[in-house]
């Protein structure tokens, strides 16, 4: 019985000697009580130590996890920045694609766009290619709602590239009220359309016909001399020019077609 006491006393020793004295004094009085108090003290002494170790470990673990968390946070931020930058880059690219594609089309001639812009000087200086005779056929259409009689005055005409040509259409308004029409045209085959240049015609502008009036509508055009040099046009002998008239509503303004490449 004394032994545990002694042990406890040794534990008590690092503490103040007062405690030791107390230990010795209480030894004689109440043994179980002393033991209990010793036990309590022992436990109290032990527990804080253990808690301290635990807390020390927890703190370091906390610090570790904290630094790890921070590391993750910075990494997340970097990744997020990259993703946002990529998104903005994609949007910018999609906006830039429009003029870039247009430039590319002009350079490569895809999509039936004019390879080179037209210039008025070309008409002045071009030389007719007399060997290549092309037949131009004419077609006239009207939309169902317009009551004009619209037809070409010649079914076909033979031209050569590099030479200006004139052709006529005729339109008649058989009704009793004035009708305003507006027309558009089409050239078949499509690839030949880029060589078909109109100097002046009657399309894309409102044309007003008074009641029972009949007018001649000329088309002044030429085929680009480069038509003869294009290998894709080697077998093209016939080009069809087709006009269609629509009724123009009041205040309606049709935009001129296409982008202005020239």
């Amino acid at each position, binding site marked *: 019985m004394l032994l545990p006491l002694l042990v406890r006393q040794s534990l008590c020793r690092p503490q103040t000697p007062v405690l030791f004295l107390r230990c010795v004094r209480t030894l004689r009085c109440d043994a179980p009580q002393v033991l209990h108090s010793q036990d309590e003290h022992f436990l109290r002494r032990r527990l804080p130590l253990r808690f301290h170790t635990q807390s020390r470990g927890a703190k370091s673990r906390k610090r570790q996890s904290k630094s790890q968390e921070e590391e993750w946070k910075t990494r997340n931020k970097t990744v997020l920045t990259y993703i946002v930058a990529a998104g903005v880059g994609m949007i910018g690219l999609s906006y830039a694609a429009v003029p870039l594609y247009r430039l590319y089309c002009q350079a490569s001639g895809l999509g039936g766009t004019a390879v080179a812009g037209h210039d008025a000087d070309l008409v002045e200086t071009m030389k007719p290619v007399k060997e290549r005779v092309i037949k131009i056929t004419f077609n006239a259409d009207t939309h169902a709602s317009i009551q004009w009689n619209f037809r070409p005055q010649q079914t076909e005409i033979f031209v050569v590239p590099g030479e200006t040509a*004139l052709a006529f259409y005729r339109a008649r308004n058989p009704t009793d009220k004035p009708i305003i029409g507006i027309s558009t045209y089409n050239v078949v085959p499509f690839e030949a359309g880029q060589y078909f240049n*109109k100097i002046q015609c009657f399309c894309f502008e409102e044309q007003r016909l008074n009641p029972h009036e009949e007018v001649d509508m000329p088309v002044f055009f030429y085929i680009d001399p480069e038509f003869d040099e294009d290998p894709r046009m080697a077998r093209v002998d016939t080009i069809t020019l087709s006009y269609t008239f629509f009724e123009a509503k009041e205040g309606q303004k049709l935009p001129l077609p296409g982008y202005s490449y020239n």
Partner: protein
Amino acid sequence: MSTAMNFGSKSFKPRAPDKGSFPLDHFGECKDFKETFMKCLRDNNFNNSQCRLQSKDYLECRMNHQLMAQEPLEKLGFRDLMDPPPNQADKDAKP
């Protein structure tokens, strides 16, 4: 016009005329010139090269009657039809 959903093949894109639109000849001021031209076409089997003089006359009529903007005929591709200068009167520039 091109058929829909045909992205691969080329489609036709109408272009505005270089010098704009002809005003309508409501009063038929140049009708005679047009008739001469059409007659020439019919006589020559619709060969445009033979009738360029008549087409030049028609366009000149239009210009004279304010139905067309005044343009030097060279710009309309009629350089070969222009009268030579007086000191070269022997040469005739008819096609």
